[in-house]
């Protein structure tokens, strides 16, 4: 074991892992993050706490993650290279680790253009791959990126993202290989709606044996309505929602659409369980955390293994 991460324990034991996510509130309201976390407790192994998602200011992943730790959950510290240079990133990593946060997800982040501070300057001192290299060096060599020794180095279980649906498709397996070479321990993918394309990507992943070097958690997001399906299909960069998914949501009455969305999500998980190399699921129920327990149960992923 490289770390004390519960997620690592479950994945190393060969059990299907389940993670979910919590978007922190847009204000100093601990009760909101506690309420979201409460709904997930016992149903997931670890919880991503997003970092200024969609480039909108929210309570920090670190700050919100500490509340989750206090509640006995296992937060995954998300961090984007957009908002911090390498000094600030390392400072927050050792700070978070000192608070018992031992799992993180290294991202480049949505462009400020999409958020509510489009006038902000993005940092991007590092890119996501260089970021992974830095966290690995902190953990395995006990050194800061600048070379100095760290007292009690942060033993972080290192995650990164992969989007099999973005272009150029032929580069997407190589990009994963590069993230793994940098030191990525686990991957959470973009939300999967186009299963055929995902399976094709996984074929390429298996051909290179990458699924044996890194744990791949398949990302899923239940859709609440046909409006959300259309929005994700047309407006969200890097999202691949096939027309038949939109049609299926449109094919039921408005009141039944949330149930249809959950059903699609559960069916997706069932099919993904059959894909060799999928090590678990990352359920991103956006502002719909209360549905995660139901999805976990209906997908046969409950009870969660006791990782101690």
């Amino acid at each position, binding site marked *: 074991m490289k770390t004390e991460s519960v997620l690592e324990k479950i994945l190393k034991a060969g059990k299907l892992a389940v993670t979910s996510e919590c978007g922190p509130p847009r204000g100093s309201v601990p009760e909101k993050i506690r309420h979201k976390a409460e709904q997930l407790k016992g149903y997931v192994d670890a919880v991503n706490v997003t970092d200024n998602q969609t480039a909108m200011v929210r309570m920090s992943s670190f700050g919100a993650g500490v509340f989750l730790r206090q509640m006995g959950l296992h937060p995954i510290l998300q961090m984007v290279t957009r908002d911090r240079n390498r000094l600030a990133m390392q400072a927050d990593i050792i700070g978070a680790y000192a608070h018992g946060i031992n799992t993180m997800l290294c991202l480049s982040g949505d462009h400020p253009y999409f958020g509510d501070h489009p006038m902000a300057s993005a940092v991007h001192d590092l*890119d996501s*791959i260089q970021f992974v290299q830095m966290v690995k060096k902190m953990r395995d060599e006990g050194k800061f990126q600048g070379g100095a020794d760290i007292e009690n180095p942060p033993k972080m279980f290192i995650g990164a993202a992969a989007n099999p*649906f973005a272009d150029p498709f032929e*580069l997407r397996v190589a*990009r994963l290989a590069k993230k793994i070479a940098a030191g990525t321990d686990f991957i959470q993918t973009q939300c999967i709606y186009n299963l055929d394309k995902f399976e094709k990507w996984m074929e390429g992943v298996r051909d290179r044996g990458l699924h044996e070097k890194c744990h791949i958690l398949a990302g899923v997001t239940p859709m609440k309505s046909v409006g959300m399906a259309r929005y994700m299909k047309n407006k969200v960069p*890097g999202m691949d929602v096939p027309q038949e998914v939109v049609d299926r949501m449109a094919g039921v009455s408005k009141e039944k659409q949330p149930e249809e969305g959950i059903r699609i999500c559960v069916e997706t998980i069932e099919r993904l369980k059959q894909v060799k190399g999928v090590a678990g699921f990352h359920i991103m129920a956006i502002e719909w955390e209360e549905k995660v327990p139901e999805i976990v149960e209906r997908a046969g992923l409950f009870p969660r293994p006791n990782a101690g």
Partner: protein
Amino acid sequence: MITAERKPLEEIIDFIRPYSRILLVGCNECVTVCAAGGRKEVGILSSLLQMTFLRQGKNLQIREHTLERQCDPEYVEELTSMADGVEAVLSMACGCGVQELSRRFKNKPVFPAVNTKFMGASERQGVWAERCAGCGDCLLGITGGICPIARCSKQLMNGPCGGSGSGKCEISPEVDCAWQLIWDRLKALGLESRYEEIIPAKDWRPARAAGPRKIIREDMAE
């Protein structure tokens, strides 16, 4: 070249409103090529300003001159006699030219008439696009001759983000995905394997991290 665009007329007028005798200085280099501040643009701006002031019942005297190179003290000396008696100087050169005039004419206010934009190239008639970020440690030799610092919206050095679609950047269909361009080029050169070599964290000191930059050529410096 360094590209620039003329500032809105109102902003320029606000600068020079208190004055009645100004020197308007163009530059024959980059800003001429990108049609922002050459001899022709000096003439146009001069007429616009005079017409505007005339309509307001004010008399504005403008001396016009376009230097060979406004960022070069040798050429700036040409302005010495022309600057006599003017109250302010308006420069149509890039920020380097404006500052050279400020250095030379210590007792006169110098105003910029253009916004300096970026180091770029002409894509087609009337269109210029950013190509170089001046990072001081060129990566083009390992990125297929296409710069990820200047041309990727997130300056990613190791591949495309999850927002690349149909060859375009997630921020706009008008912006090419730099990593799509790099990948296409590596393929064309049979250098696909190069993609998987990790470009390590950049040392930004040769860029701007070590403060304002200077080149000193010992063999040439006096």
